[in-house]
């Protein structure tokens, strides 16, 4: 199963995990530790000059605090100049097309565009027609590639730290994704990344929140939390959006909590070593109990720390590779 990571990064953009090979995913994961060390170092200057003089534009069409902050911090730690545009400050609301807005940003010589958009495929559409490096920071319910990369990195790091094998991989590791899989770009990107890395993925949630033919993605699907957790090495609680409740996809948050919440009771179904992840922000006590979120089995804050390193690695690989000349 073990494949050597390619020495080269050749892609102009990071638009999804579906487009990446296992080798490319591993290259990103292997590049991140250097950057993790930058964030953790004792010096006053937690920054390296790899993107000095480059312009990173954070272009967010959806409200986001943590992803935008993480990208912005990553860009700053690489010494890049950063610019933030939110939907209300961009021209999209005035009827300008995405293509036109991006052409205008590019006319000001932006190097990397970090795009969050509510429509699936928006970054794909732009990447095909524009020369700047596009990083998908979440498109509709489609993909959120840097989230999946930081999740895989976090799981791999936890495995390596908790076992004697400092080269441990995710091959054969069981990961359970719990909750609203249908509307979750985090779930999709994680399914693509984890299956490519050799992990065995189970998705579990109310039936209306599991996507059509999801098994064809190479995962096991179940509506029984007990079944999903019984062999899980990692448990990934997905965010339940409260507004879904009104759409009749499940009867009530109360019943959701009873059937699908990750808490001390439901964790009894899981092996003792199982660790818990969540993409944030957490609806405390809804999909994940406070006790578990803040407890020793939670990797939530490691995910946040690792997120900056992964995004530094991605920006560095995109901007400092010769993809455009190739």
């Amino acid at each position, binding site marked *: 199963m073990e494949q050597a990571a390619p*020495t080269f990064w050749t892609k102009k953009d990071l638009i999804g995990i579906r487009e990446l090979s296992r080798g490319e995913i591993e290259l990103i994961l*292997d590049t991140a530790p250097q950057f993790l*060390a930058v964030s953790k170092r*004792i010096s006053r200057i937690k920054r390296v000059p*790899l993107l000095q003089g480059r312009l990173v534009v954070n272009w967010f069409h959806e409200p986001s605090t943590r992803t935008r902050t993480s990208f912005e911090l990553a860009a700053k730690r690489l010494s890049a100049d950063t610019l933030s545009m939110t939907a209300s400050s961009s021209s999209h609301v005035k009827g300008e097309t995405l293509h036109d807005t991006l052409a205008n940003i590019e006319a000001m010589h932006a190097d990397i565009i970090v795009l969050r958009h509510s429509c699936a495929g928006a970054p794909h559409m732009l990447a095909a027609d524009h020369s700047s490096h596009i990083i998908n920071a979440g498109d509709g319910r489609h993909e959120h590639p840097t989230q999946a990369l930081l999740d895989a990195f976090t799981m791999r790091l936890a495995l390596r730290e908790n076992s004697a094998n400092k080269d441990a991989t995710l091959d054969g590791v069981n990961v359970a994704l719990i909750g609203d899989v249908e509307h979750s770009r985090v779930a999709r990107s994680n399914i693509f990344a984890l299956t490519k890395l050799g992990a065995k993925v189970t998705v579990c949630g109310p039936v209306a929140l599991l996507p059509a033919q999801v098994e064809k993605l190479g995962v096991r699907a179940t509506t029984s939390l007990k079944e999903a957790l019984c062999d899980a090495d990692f448990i990934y609680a997905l965010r339940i959006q409260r507004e879904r409740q009104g759409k009749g996809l499940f009867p009530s948050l109360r019943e959701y909590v009873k059937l699908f919440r990750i808490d001390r009771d439901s964790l009894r179904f899981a092996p003792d070593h199982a660790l818990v992840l969540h993409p944030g922000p957490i609806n405390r006590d809804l999909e994940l109990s406070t006790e578990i979120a803040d407890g020793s089995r939670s990797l939530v804050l490691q995910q946040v720390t690792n997120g900056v390193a992964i995004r530094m690695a991605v920006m560095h*690989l995109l901007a400092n590779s010769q993809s455009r000349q190739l």
Partner: protein
Amino acid sequence: MDRNNDVESTVVMDASAMAATLNSMAMAVVNGNPELESLVLLGILRRGEPLAKRLSALIEQTTGIAPPVGALSTTLYRDDLHARSSANVASRSGETYFDFSLEGRTVLLVDDVISAGRTIRAAMGEIMDYGRPKRIQLACLIDRGGRELPIQADYLGYIVHTTADEWISVQLQEVDGEDLILLHERCDK
């Protein structure tokens, strides 16, 4: 390296010559640093780090003071990443690591070979991000010429000015299992 051509190799330094060279470099470092307590050594990964450890041990033998040693990976500070074959900084050769402050100290940078000087420039840039040392010195085992920046070693083992057809290989016990420095020359038939 073009395998179609013959390569002639000459020994620049064997194990005993290397030991003697490091010994005299250590003496020079001691003489150059009356305030030995403020001295710290940073070896540039990969082969500068074991050399720094050896120098520290030699200094301890004569003075009883072992200057602390750290490792410096200059990868993230290089000015030529984009021009190299790849931007691969996947950490295979190690990461920067030291657990002491550089503030007000004398930092002795240690590397095996100095040529263009760009590694040292990157290393100095990185050091500055960690603090403000009182001074930075440089020790190199071999100077093979070809400088592109105005940087010189304060403590130098040996000078071999190589031509375009020549190159130096440094092998160290800790990394390669043997102490040996060779000069290779490509000979066209």
